[in-house]
């Protein structure tokens, strides 16, 4: 087993179908030409009674409900990229032979492992909407014959036994050659190769020798290798623009499948995904997702993308979509023996993304105070994967009741007596904070950033109301406000 061929029968048909959710399970045929000259070129299995060459009008009468479409070059390009990407996961030496066909140089590969991988890829491609057949053999030609007979994988170990019953058409004889051979009573490759090669050459010339070699599966050639993908991106333009998210989901899944194959083929995993929705009005909606665990798991990606898209509202219809995966080397790490890590990292990060879609990106995470004394200054960071052990006892242990902030602070009128707050009142505070102050602590004055335009200065008080309740007041140039409750 030196070569493998990855082939998709009815490639144009499957390419079109995998790009449009509405075509799944329906009778579908590709047509070429227009009007009365339109002819069926490929027909799906559901299209009963429709065969290539049939007039489009006749196809519609024979199979009511059939969908007739011209070929879609963009879908075919996307499907071919998927096929090539899948081929690169089997070997780094790949030829993009034709639409729906890749030839892979497997020399040096472990045969048992290669066969298992081929079966896996065939199943994955079928799941991605491309029912591929994979054949393997000693020459590219033999592998291509095997692919035509595979279901879905066929490895030819005994070429003579495999080739003998195959019809002569596999070797591609010219009509003239076919007529001669039929006259000799030869209808299979085995029948032709049973004749001596030199005798065939003497009677049919050099062309006959080439036919004999093709029939014997001996013809070999140099593969035109293609380079693996260096950027892991996919883009699609909708014509017309779409208003709902279902077409986006469908297309993104197809993109994700292809990009995941490309990453795996190149030995990478994705650490970030970048999604861009191109809007009809020229604007766009961009979002970057840092993956919980770098990988190439399409289902995990889709859960993150779907969770975000379900909450997205755009001002205009979506005219295009772009998905870019940032590659990284697969993670290799070992946690500490006593680290308490996440039980289910995938679920954790997916849920963080889902929550971010509900409340906003900047409103979920782990808070960290900023290096300033400015009140309520903090940043929201990415939660840690492991809970670190507690540090030693703090230099300044927390004291007193804990502040619960009012955001934004409540404006209040404060009447002072002998420099201390004595009465709180204010229109916004009716029924909430109003009353006589029975005890007050303060002031604590702080200021900062005086060298910047955002200079600040605040005077803080803690007061206890006679009616009950501890509150923190702040006095700035703008007046008094209740910052929160000490609770």
């Amino acid at each position: 087993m030196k070569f493998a061929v990855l082939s998709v029968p009815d490639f144009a048909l499957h390419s079109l179908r995998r790009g449009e959710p509405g075509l799944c399970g329906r009778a579908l045929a590709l047509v070429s030409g227009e009007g009365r000259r339109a002819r069926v070129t490929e027909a799906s299995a559901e299209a009963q009674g429709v065969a290539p060459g049939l007039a489009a009008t006749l196809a519609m009468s024979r199979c009511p409900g059939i969908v007739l479409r011209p070929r879609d070059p963009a879908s075919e390009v996307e499907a071919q990229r998927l096929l090539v990407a899948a081929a690169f996961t089997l070997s780094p030496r790949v030829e993009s032979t034709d639409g729906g066909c890749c030839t892979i140089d497997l020399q040096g590969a472990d045969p048992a492992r290669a066969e298992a991988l081929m079966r896996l890829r065939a199943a994955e491609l079928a799941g991605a909407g491309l029912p591929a057949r994979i054949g393997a053999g000693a020459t590219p030609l033999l592998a291509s014959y095997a692919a035509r007979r595979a279901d879905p994988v066929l490895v030819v170990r005994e070429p003579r036994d495999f080739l003998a019953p195959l019809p002569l058409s596999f070797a591609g004889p010219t009509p003239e050659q076919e007529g001669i051979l039929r006259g000799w009573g030869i209808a299979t490759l085995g029948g032709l190769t049973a004749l001596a090669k030199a005798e065939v050459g003497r009677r049919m010339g050099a062309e006959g020798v080439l036919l004999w070699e093709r029939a014997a599966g001996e013809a070999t050639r140099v593969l035109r290798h293609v380079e693996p993908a260096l950027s892991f991106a996919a883009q699609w333009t909708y014509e017309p623009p779409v208003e709902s998210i279902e077409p986006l989901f469908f297309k993104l899944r197809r993109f994700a499948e292809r990009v995941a194959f490309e990453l795996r083929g190149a030995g990478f995993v994705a650490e970030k995904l970048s999604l861009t929705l191109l809007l009809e009005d020229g604007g766009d909606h961009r979002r970057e997702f840092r993956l919980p665990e770098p990988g190439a798991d399409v289902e995990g990606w889709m859960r993150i993308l779907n969770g975000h898209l379900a909450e997205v509202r755009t001002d205009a219809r979506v005219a295009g979509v772009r998905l870019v995966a940032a590659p990284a080397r697969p993670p290799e790490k070992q946690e500490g023996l006593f680290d308490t890590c996440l039980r289910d990292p995938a679920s954790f990060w997916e849920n963080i993304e889902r929550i971010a879609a509900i409340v906003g990106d900047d409103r979920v995470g782990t808070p960290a105070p900023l290096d300033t004394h400015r009140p309520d200054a903090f940043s929201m960071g990415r939660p840690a994967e492991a809970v670190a052990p507690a540090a030693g006892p703090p230099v300044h242990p927390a004291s007193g009741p804990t502040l619960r902030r009012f955001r934004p602070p409540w404006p209040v009128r404060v009447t002072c007596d002998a420099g201390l707050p004595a009465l709180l009142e204010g229109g916004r505070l009716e029924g909430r904070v109003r009353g006589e102050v029975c005890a007050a602590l303060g002031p604590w004055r702080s200021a900062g950033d005086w060298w910047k335009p955002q200079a600040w200065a605040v005077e803080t008080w803690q007061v206890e109301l006679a009616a009950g309740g501890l509150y923190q007041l702040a006095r700035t140039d703008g007046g008094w406000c209740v910052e929160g409750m000490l609770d």
Partner: protein
Amino acid sequence: MSAASQTVSALRSLLSARFPERNRRPCGGVPADVPPLDEALGGGLPAGRLTELVSAVPSGGGQTVVARLLAATQAARQRIALVDGADGFAPGAVPDDVLRHLVWVRCSESAQAFAVADILVRDGNYAAVVIDLRGCAERALRRTPSSIWHRLQRAAEASSVAVLVQTTFPLVPAVPWRLVLDTPLSLADAAAPREDVAGRIAVRTERSHAQAAEELAG
């Protein structure tokens, strides 16, 4: 025993036998390191259960309970989530060290808080989830369908997470534990170490697990 009671009892036995996993009682708890609270709950916030903490008066100590719970879970190296219904948590009010295991969700309304809580309680990576609904619009809270709470309760049971619901009035129907903070702290506590303040929080048990079970049983 009446015929109806016998029927209900037989039905329960049948369900217990057929669905033993549904009858499993979560065990363990998450100590809040607030002695009056832990004492009332028999050791800490029960895992797999909802506990309602009603701040019936201002400055009853509800936020100090959150701060102590953060410190206690950090010491135990457990992860905790805070669903902040009115965005009232002040990171600067607690030591930096006790924030590193916290996932804080700043909601702007109660509906968001419920949606987020539903996700977090099912997550399975958290030892405790605090749902702070103080400061949320009372009308919206009173219109909350009881099915939301039952759904949260079932989810908590499945993931064995301790759920603390902070409210200003009794809100959660058939909650296993409802504790009320009805004595305000005073400004004299301002200089006291926080663990001392936590020890002074007055906790009244309005409903215990046994009462809730009786209520559910009808």
